[in-house]
């Protein structure tokens, strides 16, 4: 009788689990986790006001690099960081919701079973059999619940994600990177370049100018590469989210998970660039 009951419960649970198109959501978890690390990258926002301060060091005394403009950029840098933090928190929560360990009840059910055995309310053999079914049933129940939630979150908030990431990409790509280029051109074309030409009679000075210019170029190149990686990462996150939203109600969850896996891998590669 006991075995028959167990068999029936297992059969119902299997049917339920099968109907959800069961597949691990780990790729969605990784997609969220990687995206959150990329969104959190702080250097671009920190450097945005510093560009004007460096340009002042090159001798620029115009109003474009005034205290007032630096202060405006500092305020916007903070707003940019805040915006990044909002995206970071969203991606992290999405990742946590899709993580496998969230719906694993092994520890809790094993604890409950041990209590039943210790209290002599059931034998080890009985609880072991029930435990398998209970773990399975709890997992199925919460998996269906969270899949619906993930589907709802991604489709409902996709327009907001697209708008916010699109704007942040514009700020970094067309704002910060352009500003960095302005700084570099100011230095190369209007400070170091002419200095090389006019100091030929001063022994040793052209070489010093060249060394300083080379070092400065290297520093600015590194900043440029990091900002480009951030842009690429934000774009990949936005594209991945868009693809997930577009596929959610059209294809099986398994196929949706494959989309997440592809974008999670792309994000992982971009992360390596940011960390290098």
């Amino acid at each position, binding site marked *: 009788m006991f075995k028959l009951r167990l068999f029936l419960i297992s059969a119902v649970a299997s049917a339920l689990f099968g109907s959800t198109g069961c597949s691990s959501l780990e790729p969605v978890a990784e997609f969220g986790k990687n995206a959150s690390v990329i969104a959190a990258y702080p250097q671009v926002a920190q450097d945005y006001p510093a560009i*004007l301060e460096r340009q002042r060091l090159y001798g620029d005394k115009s109003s474009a690099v005034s205290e007032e403009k630096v202060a405006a950029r500092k305020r916007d840098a903070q707003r940019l960081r805040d915006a990044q933090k909002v995206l970071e928190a969203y991606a992290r929560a999405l990742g946590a919701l899709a993580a496998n360990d969230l719906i694993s009840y092994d520890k809790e059910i094993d604890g409950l079973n041990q209590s039943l055995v210790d209290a002599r309310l059931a034998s080890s053999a009985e609880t072991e059999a029930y435990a398998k079914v209970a773990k399975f049933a709890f997992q199925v129940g919460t998996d269906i619940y969270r899949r619906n939630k993930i589907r709802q*979150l991604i489709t409902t908030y996709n327009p907001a994600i697209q708008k916010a990431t699109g704007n942040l990409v514009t700020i970094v790509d067309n704002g910060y990177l352009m500003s960095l280029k*302005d700084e570099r051109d100011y230095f190369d074309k209007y400070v170091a370049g002419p200095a090389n030409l006019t100091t030929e009679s001063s022994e040793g000075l052209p070489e010093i100018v060249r060394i300083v210019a080379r070092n400065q170029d290297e520093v600015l190149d590194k900043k440029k590469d990091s900002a480009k990686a951030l842009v690429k990462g934000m774009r990949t996150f936005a594209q991945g989210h868009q693809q997930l939203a577009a596929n959610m109600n059209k294809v099986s969850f398994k196929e949706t998970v494959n989309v997440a896996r592809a974008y999670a891998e792309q994000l992982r590669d971009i992360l390596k660039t940011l960390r290098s």
Partner: protein
Amino acid sequence: MSKITAAQALELAKDYNRSANLIGDFRIKNWNRLSDEDRLVLGNTGRTLLDQSQDLITCAVGKILDDTQASLNDIKHATADANETIKTIEDIKKVINIGAALVTLAAAIYTENPTGIANAVKNLISAVGS
């Protein structure tokens, strides 16, 4: 500035940078053929264009950030919703833990084991408080 959009400002910044580069390259390439005054005028013009470009960027970025605020507020709601769901799922685990602690407590009371009761109560409090 208030009459142009952020996108237009960024496009203009790019154009100013391009012009400043052309002037800068021309100035360096023809350095020995230019008079001191020409060098000065061209230098000032190029630098002014780069400064204008920086100004346009400062203004445009502020506008784009203003435009992003509503979407960010929506995303904050999404995050709160996701975290609420996580909490609900974790609460189920908490309920199982409380169940286990209650069974242990009941068994300890039934067997009249004072040490067992004290430990079981501690475990129950811990399960409820986690």
